[in-house]
């Protein structure tokens, strides 16, 4: 049952008599599923390249809309009938439907449109079941079908492409008019072959991507017939893969170069790549090579070393040999290439980094200037400073943090919290924004600028915080007041200065700002000549700026940017303000990651603002009375800036003392462990929501300080403040003891007995509670874990890691020891069926309690102060992760992307 088409095919229908009829300027196209993912990008390019050949498209539910293209709008209808009722006439249907819809799409097109001549099916993975029906329908209605799983047709002479994306997003670049027709089983190689042929001066007439499903609806036989009848086409390239007998009986009347690939596929037991490229013994690649060799009368494969060919053609097994083979065959036919060869196929390395490894010469090819327009784009890449992250919905997503559900370990910018705990607070703060840890010099620079803004004496923010505290607020609530007053204008001069420094140095070739021998005379001149000088230098004396510069010198820091602003001030007779020192330091800290595009210029510009907030949060944690004009917690400003690390300052703000080595180490561990718990945690949702609400698509308007308020408001007695629960539990156990120093292994307490006695007590309590039907009886904090359970003896690997760290430092903690005795005692007493793990939260509690024990015993702090200290410590640590989330969301997020659609919300009233 088939219509009668061209006479050469009496047994089945073929409508195309010449390749010239394949893709013409007269063809009018309707695209099914025009708004689908692939068509959305491809159709506008095809339409424009082809002079506007798409008359309409369909997309269920989108009737009445249009697709915008440079060649005008394409109207969209719900289905073909609707499009035809609207008066559209077309002879070609292009199908981008999902596989399950292809057969019905074909049937609809055939039934409704009497003018239909061609159907091009782009869809991959059309079931064979549907393909056999489609074939039969095409025959019955007398319509040529192309594909499926193809990239359509293109005619370089007519400048028309129908269907898929042959020639990519710039078809004219690859599809150069010439005399060769390409028939290819591979869509990608259709274009690639056209590009390769141009290197020998051969252009194309038509390019056909046939697809390589089991059913190839427009196959090599139909192509060959039309190829013979196209006067423009002097020769053809056939790119053929194993499987199927489509090419076996072909007889060529014009020269052909056949590229047969896939000998290895004989080993396959199922298709990999093209669905139809799986062969039996008679249609594998070797067999197909033989078919073509017999047709051409050659006895071996053409290679540049062994250029075997005849007037009829040549067989290659590497597409790179196609241009040479075509030239050789055509030479025997006394035919010259279509145009001057363009380029060649030699190796052209566009990007290279050998990482200074001593490579053999052949592995270190020289960089080659890319062909146009890529050369300019690569240059542009050099112009672009910093990374650019594509924007996407960042609801419950983060480019900064992730928690591994298996290990329960959170990573922040690729560093696990366990590793973060081995770094200082200031190092973690810097890394939260720069994504890389600073070296020793970087940490010293950071300490100077962070400590410089800790003292909040005389600020409204500090006063407001104190008033809030006095009103009975929790520490997070009170600190909001101080942060709210760190508005955009406060950090503006520093942000502008960062922008100016980046602009001045971005093309300077400066790689490492720590190396002080960099010659910045050109940048000095440039700065003096323009407005930049006024952003970096002021006329008035700035006391804090001077203290900071002195501190930097006293600490022996090295920074090109600090040297530069100093030199600029000196050259132009001005002063360096504190804000500019801050700007120079953050530019230094972010320079290398900026140059490597790991961070954006936006992050760079926002860094001073973040830094100011870090300082504010730590500073305002201490009561107003601890801030005087000259001192912070009784330490002079000069000393703090020139001699203290920011971790020490945090300890000072929390506990009123400078920590000893052990305390410093413990605090660093503590703060590092709690930097983040992934984007799903409430304290991350807060800042993300705050950024989202400001609209990160206009990132300059995002209020960074409001992000921190979002963080603070999303912590509370249950999240952040709950660390005290474990402390309270331990206090209960140790309150009456004579424990003097929790760090002394010779504490004289019988922990085993304490644990056993409590285990018994707990057993009694638990039994009674259960008997009374109290399901939510009090659980012992910080033991057991939903993941780390089920073994005879269980361990939380995170706790093990930190305990080892502490042990290696010679740091003993009686409370941790007690916890380990307790889990054993609970098992012995029959409370637990196995030995529970001591979880990571216990580590946090015991470190904190150890710090607070002495003042607690001395009655210099109350339990409520201890609770505040515990909560505030959490805020300090989590501030690191917050900075990373705010910055990440500002760089990647979309406006209001954290909202939940109404359909996903539930009403429970």
């Amino acid at each position, binding site marked *: 049952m088939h219509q009668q088409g061209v006479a050469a095919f009496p047994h089945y229908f073929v409508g195309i008599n010449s390749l010239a009829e394949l893709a013409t300027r007269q063809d009018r196209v309707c695209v099914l599923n025009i708004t689908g993912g692939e068509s959305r990008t491809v159709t506008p390019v095809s339409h424009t390249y082809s002079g506007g050949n798409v008359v309409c498209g369909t997309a269920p539910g989108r009737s009445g809309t249009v697709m915008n293209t440079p060649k005008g709008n394409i109207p969209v209808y719900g289905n073909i009938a609707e499009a035809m009722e609207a008066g559209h006439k077309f002879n070609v249907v292009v199908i981008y439907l999902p596989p399950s819809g292809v057969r019905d799409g074909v049937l609809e097109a055939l039934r409704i449109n009497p003018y239909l001549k061609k159907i091009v099916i782009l869809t991959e993975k059309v079931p064979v079941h549907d393909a056999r029906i489609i074939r039969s329908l095409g025959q019955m209605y007398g319509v040529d079908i192309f594909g499926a799983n193809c990239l359509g047709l293109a005619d370089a002479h007519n400048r028309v492409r129908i269907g898929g994306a042959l020639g990519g997003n710039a078809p004219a670049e690859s599809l150069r008019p010439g005399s060769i027709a390409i028939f290819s089983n591979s869509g990608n190689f259709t274009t690639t072959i056209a590009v390769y042929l141009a290197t020998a001066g051969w252009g194309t007439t038509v390019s056909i991507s046939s697809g390589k499903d089991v059913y190839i609806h427009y196959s090599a036989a139909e192509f060959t017939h039309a190829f013979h009848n196209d006067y423009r086409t002097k020769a053809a390239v056939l790119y053929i893969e194993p499987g199927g007998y489509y090419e076996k009986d072909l007889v060529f009347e014009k020269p052909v170069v056949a590229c047969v690939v896939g000998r290895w596929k004989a080993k396959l037991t199922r298709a990999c790549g093209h669905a139809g490229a799986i062969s039996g013994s008679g249609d594998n690649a070797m067999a197909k090579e033989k078919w073509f060799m017999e047709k051409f009368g050659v006895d071996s494969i053409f290679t540049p070393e062994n250029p075997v060919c005849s007037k009829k053609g040549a067989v290659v097994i590497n597409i790179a040999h196609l241009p040479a083979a075509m030239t050789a065959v055509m030479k025997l036919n006394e035919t010259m290439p279509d145009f001057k060869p363009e380029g060649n*196929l030699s190796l052209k390395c566009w990007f290279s980094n050998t990482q200074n490894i001593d490579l053999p010469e052949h592995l270190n090819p020289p960089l080659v200037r890319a062909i146009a327009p890529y050369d300019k784009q690569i240059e542009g890449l050099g112009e672009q400073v910093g990374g650019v992250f594509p924007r996407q919905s960042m609801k419950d997503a983060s480019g900064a943090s992730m928690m591994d559900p298996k290990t329960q370990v959170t990573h922040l910018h690729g560093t696990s919290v366990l590793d973060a705990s081995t770094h200082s607070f200031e190092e973690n703060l810097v890394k939260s924004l720069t994504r890389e840890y600073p070296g020793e010099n970087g940490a010293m620079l950071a300490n100077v600028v962070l400590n410089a803004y800790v003292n909040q004496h005389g600020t409204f923010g500090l006063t407001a915080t104190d008033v809030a505290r006095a009103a009975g607020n929790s520490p997070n609530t009170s600190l909001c007041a101080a942060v709210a007053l760190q508005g955009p204008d406060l950090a503006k001069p520093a942000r502008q200065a960062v922008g100016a420094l980046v602009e001045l140095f971005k093309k300077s070739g400066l790689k490492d700002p720590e190396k002080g021998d960099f010659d910045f005379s050109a940048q000095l001149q440039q700065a003096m000549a323009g407005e930049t000088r006024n952003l970096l230098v002021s006329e008035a004396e700035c006391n804090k700026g001077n203290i900071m510069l002195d501190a930097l010198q006293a600490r022996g820091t090295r920074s090109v940017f600090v040297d530069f602003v100093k030199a600029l001030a000196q050259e132009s007779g001005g002063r360096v303000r504190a804000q500019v020192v801050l700007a120079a330091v953050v530019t230094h800290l972010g320079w290398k990651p900026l140059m490597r595009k790991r961070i954006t210029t936006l992050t760079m510009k926002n860094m001073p603002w973040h830094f100011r907030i870090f300082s504010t949060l730590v500073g305002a944690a201490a009561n107003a009375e601890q801030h005087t004009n000259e001192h912070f917690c009784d330490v002079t400003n000069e000393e703090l800036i020139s001699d203290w690390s920011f971790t020490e300052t945090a300890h000072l703000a929390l506990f009123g003392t400078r920590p000893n080595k052990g305390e410093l180490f413990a605090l660093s561990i503590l703060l590092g462990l709690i930097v983040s718990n992934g984007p799903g945690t409430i304290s991350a949702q807060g800042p993300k929501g705050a950024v989202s609400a400001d609209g990160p698509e206009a990132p300059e308007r995002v209020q960074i300080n409001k992000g921190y308020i979002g963080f603070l408001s999303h912590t509370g007695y249950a999240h952040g403040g709950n660390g005290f629960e474990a402390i309270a539990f331990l206090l209960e156990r140790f309150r009456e003891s004579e424990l003097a120093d929790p760090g002394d292994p010779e504490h004289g307490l019988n922990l085993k007995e304490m644990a056993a006695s409590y285990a018994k007590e707990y057993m009694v309590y638990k039994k009674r509670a259960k008997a009374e039907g109290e399901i939510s009886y009090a659980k012992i904090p910080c033991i057991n874990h939903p993941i780390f359970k089920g073994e005879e003896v269980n361990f939380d690997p995170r706790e093990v890691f930190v305990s080892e760290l502490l042990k290696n430092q010679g740091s003993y903690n009686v409370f941790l020891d007690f916890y380990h005795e307790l889990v054993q005692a609970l098992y012995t007493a029959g409370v637990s069926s196995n030995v529970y793990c001591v979880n990571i939260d216990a580590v946090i509690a015991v470190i904190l309690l150890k710090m607070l024990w002495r003042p607690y015993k001395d009655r210099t702090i109350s339990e409520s102060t201890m609770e505040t200290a515990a909560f505030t410590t959490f805020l300090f640590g989590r501030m690191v992760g917050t900075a990373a989330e705010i910055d990440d969301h500002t760089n990647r997020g979309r406006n209001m992307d954290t909202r939940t659609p109404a359909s996903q919300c539930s009403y429970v009233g």
Partner: protein
Amino acid sequence: MQITGMYWGSKLLKFVDFPTSEVLGPEASGDQIKELIGRWGEIFVKPMFKGGVGKKGKSGLIGKANNLATAMKEKERLYFAEHIHNNVHAKAEGVTFEGAVPAEYEVYFSITDSTKYRAPVITITHHGGVNIEELPPNQLAVIPFDPLTGLKGFVVSNALRKINAPQELISPLVQNLPKLWELYHYYGMTTLELNPIRMMPAGKGRLLPLACDFKCAFDADDPNWKRLGLPSDLDASSYSDFEQEVNALRTYQGQSDVFVINPQGTITAMTFGGGANALVTEQLGDSATISSDFGGNPPYDKMHAISRIVYKYWLAQSNVLFIIGGKANNTDIYETFRAMADALRDHFHSAGPQPLYVVVGRGGPNLIRGMGYLRDTLDGLGLPYQMFGYDSAMSEVVNFAQSVDKWMKAGGRAMVARSMGIS
């Protein structure tokens, strides 16, 4: 998915009421086997292979027994039998016991889709039970038919007349063979082969066709075979864990075809496009860990997920991560490169850094943005790399990747490790 043997074959044939030999599975008890022997006089003991396995008979993998002791002995011999055919190694997991059907004629019958006719065809001969490729053409009928009307009795009848089949065969086959079209067409098969169908005397001079061996292949892109309710692990053994994990991501948007080439390979190629897949895999040979085709413009999420799986399975042993494709028509290079780069960074974060050399050859939309992103990521990870433009011959880029692999094996890997600070 492919199924061979009567254990599952008989169950599938029951869907369309096609008569089969009597089959017991490996769980059959001694009494059941004894009764089977009692009914048929003799039984065949056949190993059960998962997936498609050919030429079992010629390899001595079909046992015969006319008593329980022999049957049990054959069971023991064949239960875990190993078989190599066409480079495919298979190991049996169990045996079937099948009643030996007495017959005068053995018929070969198959339905498949022919690329010659671009239509479904039946292949039939009454000289069955042998390798049909060895038969002279006049003893074999290959007849195409219209899928819109399906396999009708007259197609079978004409085919049998064409090869001068004995009269007594025609009626029972015309009655029964068209049933198989239902199974073939509506349950997503691409091949269905019964060889032999033994024509058993059924009284009054009539013959009854009983299928005595079964082979079929299903179309991975056709969900219809899922309606058969076959166990999900039936064909799982022919897929590695890696392949199964990637296959779980199989959607129509973007390719995700993978095939393990050499579990000891040292070049892991992320290949884009069916053509590149054919060329690259061929040239890399046994250096390649996998053959892959990730073309078809996969979205970021899918590409990221695929990359993570590939890295998880293959990166540790690889010297070269090879990203290769032609000049893409539609695949967004920025999106795919960003996904691969991000997944690489994630992998290094979770699995730790490792010495690796990255070689890239690609063209297509957003090429430079994509290469730029990958470059920045690789710089950040401290990995050496070279990226080649699409106007470099793909085969030359493959050669380059192989040279790098050779150098890595000859001490380069240690040098890269040193430069990355890995001891």
